[in-house]
């Protein structure tokens, strides 16, 4: 344990520690810990990586290595309060997924992976979301938006939404 944590709160550490009995070593807590921090901060800055490493008894490089592999955790700045994954894999693409992504980026004035200046919305291309029966689809925080048209999606993404869990 380090004495002065700048980013990880006691609550986050408690959540990580609560999962420890599930695994025979602490390295397996890496992904759960990254998720716990990301759920609160919407990104995992480098300082948080060092603090997670200290909590888990790992080298910061080990945690950073895992983090960078997944491309899921933003590091430089938080993603939007709504993070929208727009599926572009085959079943959605056949029903307009690429067009949907392009339209939404244009409508919000951002590039793919970008965040609106007010911090409300991040739009990211996603590979298959496993909801091909509702193509084209979007995962916005925990909500699956089904059979989206560009207009319906643009309206849906303006709605406030519960945090991703």
């Amino acid at each position, binding site marked *: 344990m380090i004495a002065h944590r700048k980013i990880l709160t006691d609550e986050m550490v408690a959540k990580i520690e609560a999962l420890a009995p599930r695994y025979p070593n602490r390295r397996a807590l890496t*992904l759960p810990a990254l998720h716990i921090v990301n759920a609160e901060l919407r990104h995992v800055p480098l300082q948080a990586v060092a603090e997670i490493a200290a909590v888990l008894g790992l080298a910061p490089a080990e945690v950073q290595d895992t983090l960078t592999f997944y491309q899921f955790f933003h590091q430089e700045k938080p993603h939007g309060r709504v993070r929208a994954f727009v599926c572009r894999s085959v079943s959605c693409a056949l029903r307009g997924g690429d067009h949907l992504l392009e339209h939404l980026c244009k409508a919000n004035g951002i590039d793919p992976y970008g965040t609106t200046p007010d911090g409300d919305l991040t739009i990211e291309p996603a590979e298959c979301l496993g909801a091909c029966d509702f193509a084209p689809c979007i995962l916005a925080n925990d909500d699956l938006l089904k059979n989206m048209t560009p207009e319906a999606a643009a309206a849906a993404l303006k709605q406030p939404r519960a945090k991703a869990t």
Partner: protein
Amino acid sequence: MPSCKPVLLEAVGVPDGHTLASYRSRGGYAPVEKLLPEKQPADVVEMVKASGLRGRGGAGFSTGLKWTFLPKDHPGPIYLCINADESEPGTFNNRILMEDDPHQVLEGIILSAFATRASTAYIYLRYEYPRSWHRLQAAIDEAYAAGLLGKNITGSGFSLDVYLHRGAAAYICGEETGLIESLEGKRAWPRIKPPFPAIEGLFRKPTVVNNIETMACVAQIARRGVDWFKSIGVPADPNNPRDPGSYGPKLYCLSGHVERPGCYEAPLGITARQLIEEFGGGVWKGRKAKAVIPGGISMGLMTEAELDTPLDFAGPGKVGCLGLGTAAVVVIDETVSIVDFLHNSCRFFAHESCGQCTPCREGTSWSLRMLERIKAGKGRLKDLDLLAEIGATMGMMPGSTICGLADGAAWPIKNAIKKFRGEFEDYIKQTNPHGWMVTDPVPALQIVGAH
């Protein structure tokens, strides 16, 4: 119509079908309560072996046989990992099972853990399934409260803990050793085999990795019997001693250009055409199919003329596809350019290659860059030969990579170029009238991988 009464999908559409009470009312958990106190683990292994159940995750390996690879009399722990990292494009059957009937999955896990003597099971769930996460966690909580998980399950002396573990959006975590590495907190780089997970897997202990649908099948075999399971599907080919048959019901995911996309339960061996016509309401807008993916994008393509191929474990291979895969059937109608399709496929694999093996990392990336070039009207006929060469040389089959991701990336390339070469040539000649015959090297485009 080759249909059977839905069994795996019995709870779909049932109000509160995902709850413990509803599952019990359908006969659920009776097998756990009966078998665990009375039978030995070896009896359950024998039952599953005798059923002919083959893993539903994609490779189609015999589930019971996989379990027998665990060392005998191992002091433990032995781990059971459930692969719920369903990410193969076109595939969503596991999602349906986890959301609509999580207890069916849990019962299969309890029986499989008992059979393999595992006292801890991890469900590795992909991040993009928040609803599955909540439904499964609720079901796990219900099962603990009812004494179906935890210490001394139903007084049998057998104990089991089940934990949900969440991924972070990487296709490679569906590869069983990639999944294990990811669960251990590392980058999901698949391991060189042997040792296979049954000998040295999660946390260096003997490990079985099974798919969600496989678990549901185990639960139904225990409830309805081996004879019921073997009465469905395609028997082993008597002329082929290496064919173990394709028994049981299967969840087929139908998407793309069909009138009624969805997850449908049918006996193994239904043809793609029957599935599309009878379950899917036909190709949408009255059009014809140009091509059909038989089991997730990595299995390659069937042409319209090949649609009478039975979708059992042996069928798609007979028309040059990689296999049945996840049985996710994606219909591509006649208006779609095959160039666009292959670009989409190459983009997926270039993004998802884990970057460990050079032939895959470079092959997927370069195939995408070539497709980008072709789409931009700068294709040359030579590119088709280069693509075919990449398709033939990356993967486990040619022996150049550690895992099968590259074979999955190669198959759509190989099938598309072989079965639709004329369309590629026409496209290239029309869009690049002055350069299609050039064979000089061209400058590289930017790198595209995620990992």
